[in-house]
């Protein structure tokens, strides 16, 4: 520990929706830019974030996500409407639009920045086995590991975050 301060950030990314892919990548790249040592452990649906060619098409579902603003013109759309076909695609394109308007980096851009800054990206071996994900489906520059890999890293001076 450096003067009692954390020198590492250990992050678990367990969700594969567009809205849940952003926070771990933003915090990881920011921490790495602040000279911290960072590991993100991608487990369960978090693996979607690492899938080559697919991670630029992550979706966000309005259903069961009442915090997501759902307004068409001046009309507020009830959350249950999210069950209708096409609503997930609509919410996804809405969120892409907001992100573009605010000039927020895309998921692949943040992954590139993370690797460039030396963030360690770890894909969960067990999840790969359970979901039948092959190493070739994932982006380059990853490590594959298990819970112990993450815990070993997180056990020393780390801020630990789970998404």
């Amino acid at each position: 520990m450096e003067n009692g301060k954390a020198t590492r950030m250990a992050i678990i990314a367990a969700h594969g929706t567009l809205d849940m892919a952003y926070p771990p990548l933003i915090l990881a790249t920011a921490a790495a830019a602040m000279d911290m040592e960072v590991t993100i452990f991608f487990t369960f649906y978090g693996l979607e974030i690492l899938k080559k060619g697919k991670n630029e098409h992550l979706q966000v579902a309005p259903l069961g996500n009442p915090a997501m603003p759902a307004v068409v013109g001046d009309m507020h759309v009830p959350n249950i409407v999210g069950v209708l076909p096409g609503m997930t695609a609509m919410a996804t394109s809405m969120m892409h639009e907001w992100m573009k308007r605010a000039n927020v980096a895309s998921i692949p851009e943040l992954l590139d920045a993370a690797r460039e800054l030396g963030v360690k990206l770890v894909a969960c071996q067990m999840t790969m086995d359970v979901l039948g994900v092959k190493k070739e489906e994932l982006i380059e520059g990853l490590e594959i590991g298990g819970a112990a890999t993450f815990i070993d890293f997180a056990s020393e001076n780390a801020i630990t975050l789970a998404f």
Partner: protein
Amino acid sequence: MDIKADQVLDCSGLSCPMPIIKTKKAIDALQIGQVLEMIATDPGSKSDMDAWTKKTGHQLLDSQEAGGKFMFFIQKAK
């Protein structure tokens, strides 16, 4: 305060966390003692640059605000 920057980095229009990522890369490329001027339009960059310099040990010599832009003068300390 009149500070001469050795390099200027324009992060206008970029959102968090890109300004600090680009600032880190730019500072890495400078020599100790050289000064980077970073320009941003993200209002969050004000507190972020305070935090970034505090955490990394580089020195925030001055920060200015004019016409919706924020200017930060950072001296590489190590």
